[in-house]
């Protein structure tokens, strides 16, 4: 590129795009956090050996199975739109699954098909909020706390997720109504 002014202009455009992408990510996430509808997603019992993922807790959810008329129309890894509703206890529940964006004004989110069970007319979904990042040194403590709670049937573990226009943001993870970060800081002090 011999022409210097053109290079300068293109450089300025490049810098703007490079800043625009992370900034727009931040704005969109903040919008969902501040203006989204809160949904509580119950987590599934976990194998404590399977949740160690370094600096985040790997969340698995219990209500991710959907009974469908025919499994033939769905493909593995396909992106789907999930309409949400709340059950009598106030936890999130899948209302419908569709390959098209819901037209009516209702809360929905995107998910991916994790597995298909043709015999049982069932598909399982992968939610887009499986990771809850913690500080490097807190993550192992959080993981063991979460694992203990997730296999203990008497304790209720759930994730608070904000939902807006198909976008989701994981806000917090609770064990028996206490944020996991609070439990971790207590445990860390005890040690």
């Amino acid at each position, binding site marked *: 590129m011999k022409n210097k002014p053109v290079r300068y202009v293109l450089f300025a455009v490049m810098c703007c795009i490079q*800043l625009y992408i*992370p900034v727009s990510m*931040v704005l969109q996430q903040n919008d969902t956090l501040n203006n989204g509808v809160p949904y509580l997603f119950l987590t599934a019992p976990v194998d404590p050996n399977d949740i160690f993922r370094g600096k985040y807790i790997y969340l698995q959810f219990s209500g991710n199975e959907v009974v469908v008329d025919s499994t033939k129309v769905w493909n593995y890894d396909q992106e789907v739109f999930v309409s949400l509703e709340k059950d009598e206890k106030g936890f999130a529940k899948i209302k419908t699954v569709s390959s098209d964006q819901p037209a009516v004004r209702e809360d929905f989110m995107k998910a991916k098909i994790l597995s298909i069970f043709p015999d049982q007319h069932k598909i399982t979904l992968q939610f887009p*909020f499986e990771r809850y*990042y913690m500080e*490097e040194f807190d993550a192992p403590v959080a993981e063991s706390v979460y694992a203990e709670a997730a296999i203990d049937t008497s304790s209720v573990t759930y994730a608070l997720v904000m939902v807006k226009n198909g976008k989701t943001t994981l806000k917090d993870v609770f064990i028996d109504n206490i944020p996991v970060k609070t439990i971790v800081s207590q445990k860390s002090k005890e040690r």
Partner: protein
Amino acid sequence: MHKEIKEWLDNGVIDNDTSVRIENYIASKQKNTQSYFLVFGIIGSLLIGLGLMLIIAHNWDHFSIITKTAISLLPLMATQIMSGFVLFKKFNSDTWRESVATLLFFSIGASIALISQTYHMESDEKSFLLTWMLLALPVVYLMNSSMTFVLFTCGITFYGALKGYSTVPFYKNEYWLLFLLMLPFYIQNIKVKPSGLFTYLQHWILPCSLLVVFGSLHAEGESWMLPVYISLLSFFVLFSYLPVFTNLPFFGNGYRIVGFTGTLLLLFIITFKDWDIHNYVTSAYFSFSPIKTDFWTTIFILISFILIWSVNKIKNPFSPLFLVPGIIFLLFLFPLPHYVPTIVINFFILFLAVFYLRQGLKKNHLGILNGGLGILTILIFCRFFDTEISFVLRGIIFLLVGFGFFFANYYMFQKRKSDEK
């Protein structure tokens, strides 16, 4: 120094030739110093960039979301300002340009990573890598940075493999598009800096990247991957004989080394009787189908192969490796008894060994001669695993080959001596 040289010249202390020699000497010294600065500048940038990523990976929970967001954008903005400064003031300095571009490359990744962590965003490495690489591509061109090109190639290769080796069809893998997008920079580099160290590095990294991602063209139930890889590797060999690559030093021509060693390695695998090409052949021959990516990739490479060969008239130097894709293709195409391909490839490797031995002797080239002997030795060694020959006989064969090495080299030295006389 230049002033002093002029003064010495004016006062008759040195003559004109000596002054030119001194000037040249100083210039070469300066070039060396610049190269050192370049290498250390890039290493420094790489370390700072990686350090930045690691510090961000700690995920500072005690900071508020706003602080974390500001921190995630700071390195990016700082390196952008530095890049702007280099673009305006220091664009002719390789050291400045490459170091700052490398830093900018990592800052982009670091800022997206930290934002993803702050908001516990989607756990998808693929979309993270794709965003990072798309934002980094203009850095390669606008900063004219070869190091960023290398990092970009590594990034898209990783992305291409992650995406390709899943259930995604090849045309939905953005790797191929990104690969095409970076080619103009590579071609420009070959034109402008044909003997630059970075250009040599690029001659290695491009074929390696293709080798990694090509396996993802394999679709379920297809068995044409062997012809695909053989054709690709032989294509590299042919490509390495194009006029632009002919003056490269041995280790600068990555295509040739990757192509040669890869083809030979695959051929040696086929020579084993337990490795049943027939298994592949039975499911492969006559499986012409428009959706078979493996098969059509082989055809595509073969056609490009023939085109390059005929258009550029690469007849000299002829390499028997050019015949390999054709042979493998024919072996795959026709329903032959399972031992036929094994025997054909064994004899073909024997032919290769003899060809290079003869060529080495004819050209008086020790490298080619010993290459031929090496191929022969590996072939014999491989056959020891197939056959139950007694240790004594194996020993004798190795002794003979060993003496062969010795005498061939000795003969060559003697020939050279008599030629010199």
